[in-house]
Every structure is written in C-alpha cells, then in structure tokens.
C-alpha cells in the first residue's frame, strides 16, 4: 500500500478532511515501513508568538503590551522510517493566540460596517486580540543525536475557530490621506473605533517548523519548537491591513514516548 499524505483541494469540508487525515495516519502505524520501537509520542505544550507583518512597517512605533493568551498545544506524533531516514507526522490541536497593545503612526486602516466605511491613516493606540484554534499536521525530518532529536519540516493547519479584532483609541484618523480631515478618536466606548476582521481570515495555514526534543528520562522529555508561518492569515483580496500578517510562534512543552 502506497503511503502518502494527500491533501485534497482546499475547499473540502472539515469533516471529510479530518477523516482522511486520521485514516492516513493510522495507515502509517500499520505500515511495514515503520521500524522504530517508539511509534507514538504524545505532546502537551504552550504556544507563544504573534501574527506579524514582515518586516515590521515603520508605522508601528512600539509594542506597549504583550499579554499571554490561553494557547495550549496537545497532540500525538507518529514516527516512522523511510530508507533509514527518520520522519514524524502528527496531529495537534492548538491555539495560536495573541493579545497585544501597540502604538502606531499613520497606519492604514479601513473600517466597514454595513454600507458605510471609513478609511484613512490612523495614529494612536491599538489593542488587538487574535485567536486561532486549529488542527495542525506537522511533518518532520528527524536527526537523532544521543538524547536529542532535531526536527525540521513543514506543517499544515486547518482553522477551527478564528478571531481577529481590536480597538483603535487615543489618537486620530486622517480620513483618506494625510491631508484629509483629522478625526479625533477617543479612549472610551462610543469614542473609540472597533474593528473585526475575523471573517477575512483564511481557513488554512502552512509554514515551516523546526524543533528540538530533549529526552531527560527513558520515555519523557522537553520540546522546544518554532513554527514560522509562510502564508498570511488573511484572504489575499483583503486589503485593509496593509501587509500580510504571518503567524510566528514558538512552543515549549513536554513529550512522552509511548
């Protein structure tokens, strides 16, 4: 039986995709190619990072607060060998959240509600929350060295629940361009501007992951990973936020080899 992880067209509904994924991974476990005694590793960890434009535009003047969010990551990985090379593939359930305050200067923003919209350059304070619950399939090539495993490879994520919203306050909006009317934006409800771009977020993300597993006992160990998103979190036709935002997250956790 040929083993491969196949990713069908992006428009597949979630449940079918899920089933195919589980089936593929189960097939791996039963495959004659699997030779390692430790097939399954369960993991639990914590994600920390953010969705950021790269490079950070000059309109972002400072990051004023960076608050932790409930961003756990739990899952299981299956290790297998192909021609004596070690790989792993897994299924993780995680949240990549972000709660940040920033000061911006002349940052392009567009806020639409119904048929009216306001767009222009905002200078002031932004308080923003991002929530991205997802099912992630990381695929890694493994280099083994004594108690360490170095992992490197792509990951693919399906968003289950997403939110991107915030408040623009304590500043002003120059409507249209820098010579447009300057509209003061206050610091209280009714005087500040809220925005919510959750509906504009893509359902699929992918990127590259690199990580280190350090086994400190026979079965358990510590893992540190970096997941660098290569796809922007918003649909490509969404132009309100000037630049694509990439999810860049590190995670720290524990693993246990079954």
């Amino acid at each position: 039986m040929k083993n491969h992880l196949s990713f069908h067209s992006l428009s597949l509904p979630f449940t079918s995709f899920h089933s195919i994924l589980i089936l593929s991974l189960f097939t791996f476990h039963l495959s004659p190619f699997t030779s390692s005694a430790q097939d399954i590793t369960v993991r639990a960890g914590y994600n920390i990072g953010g969705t950021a434009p790269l490079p950070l535009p000059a309109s972002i003047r400072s990051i004023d607060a960076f608050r932790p969010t409930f961003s756990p990551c739990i899952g299981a990985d299956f290790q297998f060998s192909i021609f004596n090379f070690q790989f792993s593939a897994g299924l993780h359930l995680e949240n990549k959240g972000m709660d940040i305050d920033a000061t911006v200067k002349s940052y392009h923003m567009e806020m639409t509600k119904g048929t009216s919209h306001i767009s222009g350059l905002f200078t002031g304070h932004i308080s923003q929350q991002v929530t991205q619950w997802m099912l992630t399939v990381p695929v890694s090539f493994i280099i083994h060295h004594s108690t360490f495993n170095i992992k490197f490879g792509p990951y693919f994520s399906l968003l289950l629940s997403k939110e991107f919203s915030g408040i623009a306050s304590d500043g002003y909006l120059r409507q249209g361009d820098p010579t447009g009317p300057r509209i003061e934006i206050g610091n209280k409800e009714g005087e500040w501007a809220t925005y919510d771009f959750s509906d504009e977020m893509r359902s699929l993300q992918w990127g590259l992951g690199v990580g280190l597993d350090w086994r400190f006992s026979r079965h358990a160990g510590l893992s540190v990973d970096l997941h660098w998103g290569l796809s922007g979190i918003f649909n490509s036709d969404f132009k309100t936020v000037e630049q694509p935002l990439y999810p860049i997250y590190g995670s720290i956790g524990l693993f246990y080899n079954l």
Partner: protein
Amino acid sequence: MKRLLLASLFLTTLLFASCIKDELPNNECDILSAWVEGEEYESFFYQTTQMRIDNIPSNSTEIVFQVRTKTGLPPIPVYFALTPGATIEPANGSLQDFSDGPVTYIVTSEDDAWCRIYRVDFQEASSSASSHFRFEHVAVDTFTNGSTYHIFYEIEDNIRRNIWASGNAGVAILHGDWTPAQFPTHSTDNGYQGKGVCLNTQSTGAWGAAFGKPIAAGNLFLGRFNVNAVLTDALKATEFGIPTSQQPVKVSGWYKYTPGDTFTDASMQPVPGRVDQGHIYAVFYRNHDAQGNPVVLYGDNVLSSDLIVSKAELVPAATDQWTHFEITLEGGSADPAILAAMGYSYTVVFSSSKDGDTFEGAVGSTLYVDEVTVEFQAN
C-alpha cells in the same frame, strides 16, 4: 516551567520590539494656529485677542482675521504654527499684502510628499444695521472622500463671508458617495422666495450607530463646525457665534416643519407617543471670559452659559404651509464700549430635531427655512 514561560514572553516581546524601524518623517501638513505679532498692527484690530486664531479645524482651508478697516492696511507678517517638520510658502512670518484680497499659502509636509493650500485673509467686520439672509448663495464643497455638500454663505461689500455652518462635514465622513441633496443640510429651489434651506434629520447608518450617533439632524447656524471632535465630543463640534458690534433684538423669517414618523432615542429605540420638534433660536453672548480669554459657545452650553446676555427660542408648530415666525431676544443689554470692540458674538440656529445633538429625534423630520431677517438695536 513558569519561569521558562515568562522568559519566553519577555524574549518574544524583545524580538518584536527589536524589529521596530526608525520613525518616518511626518506626512501631515496643517496650519494649527495663525497670528499677527507687533504693536504697530494692534490698531487695526478690535481686540488683541483677535490677532490670534487657534484651534484651526483640520477641514478649514480659509483663515480670516477680522479687522476694523482695511484702509491703510500695510503689509502684515502672519505667523503660523504648523505640523512639526512642515514648511510653508510664502515664508512663516513674511510680510504679505492683504489689501487686494486673500494670500495663498502652501504647507508642505516634513516628508515632502503632501501639501495643503490655505487662503489667509483680512476682512472688515460686518456693520449692517440689519441682516437679511435670503440663502441664495450656495457653494458646493467636496470632501476628501469625494462626497459633495452645500455650504451657504453671504456676500457683503463684495466679500464672500462664510458665516453659516452645518454638520454636513461630520456626516460626509461616513458617506463617500453622497451628493448634496442627500445631506441633512442642503439648498432647495422651493424656498419661500427663490432658494431656501432644507434641514432633514437622517439616519447615519451602521457606522454612526456604532459610534453612538445613530441620527444626524439637519442644522444651520452662524458659527463654525469643527470636524475634529465629531466622534469624541459631538457637542463641541458645533461652535456657535460670530463676533458683532451690534446687539440683535429680533429674528424673523419663514418656515415649514414636518416631524418624522418614528421618534427614536439615542439607542435607536422607538419612543411611542413622542413627536419630534424643530428648533429655532438666537443667542447673544459675551465672547471673552473674566480672564480675558476668547470664548465660543458649544452645543453643550449655547443656551445655558453664564456669558449669555440675551436669547430667544422657538419650537415651531408643525405646518406644511410657509409660516412667518418672529422671536424677540430677552435678557440684558450690552456694554456699549465692549460692543464697539466686538466683544460680543451672536448666533442664529435652525435644527430639524430639537434634541438631535443628543441623538434623539425622528428620521425624516424636515424644517424648511428662508428669508431670515435679524434686526439689531439702533445705536
């Protein structure tokens, strides 16, 4: 584990923070204040406080100094406070000749990419014994987002005086594709005589409601509308009053009023049994406080301030026929010396929803106004 987590939090913040780029030069190019300096020019002004104009709204392109007379007006140096880093041409503080009309200044932003054009003018203060406002003079203003709306002005001694203001600019922010007839304040060809004014209370749509400002009443008043404060403090956006050297005693004119169908409160909830009302009022007030600072009245105190000398109010009865109205200002008398020095201001205000400034009213309420006369006290 917790320490590791906190350390990561700190490192991540540091990572993001270290990527912050250098600040770019400013791209705005506004005139924030303008003033004339020099004792030799003081005699041309009624008050030295009129030698300075502060808080110039971002939607202004015209800066007008009121003077006693332009006869013998020498070249005057006008100084400007600009957006930091911006430059102005002709030079800041340079002597300019205003005897033939306004002088055009161009302000360029620090990053050299944007510029704004302003006209600075010196105008003789109006001195008519009565003022007839016929509302025949209408101009079309284009907002930055492309919407266009009407502005009413007067012509006196061949000079255009932009003394009438409305909340149109505030509504224009939300509606980039509107044309004049859609705005709460617009001209109508069916005035009592010739053209007149149509004031119409409207819904501001989902955005206005999101900011807690679900309706916009049609309004017209003597004064200035400052678009800057329209979201944070809507009552401060309406600056009522123009300086005068005469005390108004009576305001009369013609009107028609039809209330809208459903009266709603500030949350757009219908209030059964309540019917919208229009509002016509005039206020005459002292335009400097006890410390000598210049004062203008806003939406939150134009009918209640201690500086009011006399006022008159009318809630016009609903009628679909042109009806004459007349209100007489009651109160005290102006001090003649202060009056001669233009130490008083007056305003006349028309609104299609009496409580529109607190966003209570009925969408669709319409007030027509035309042929307004203000009679002043004979000296």
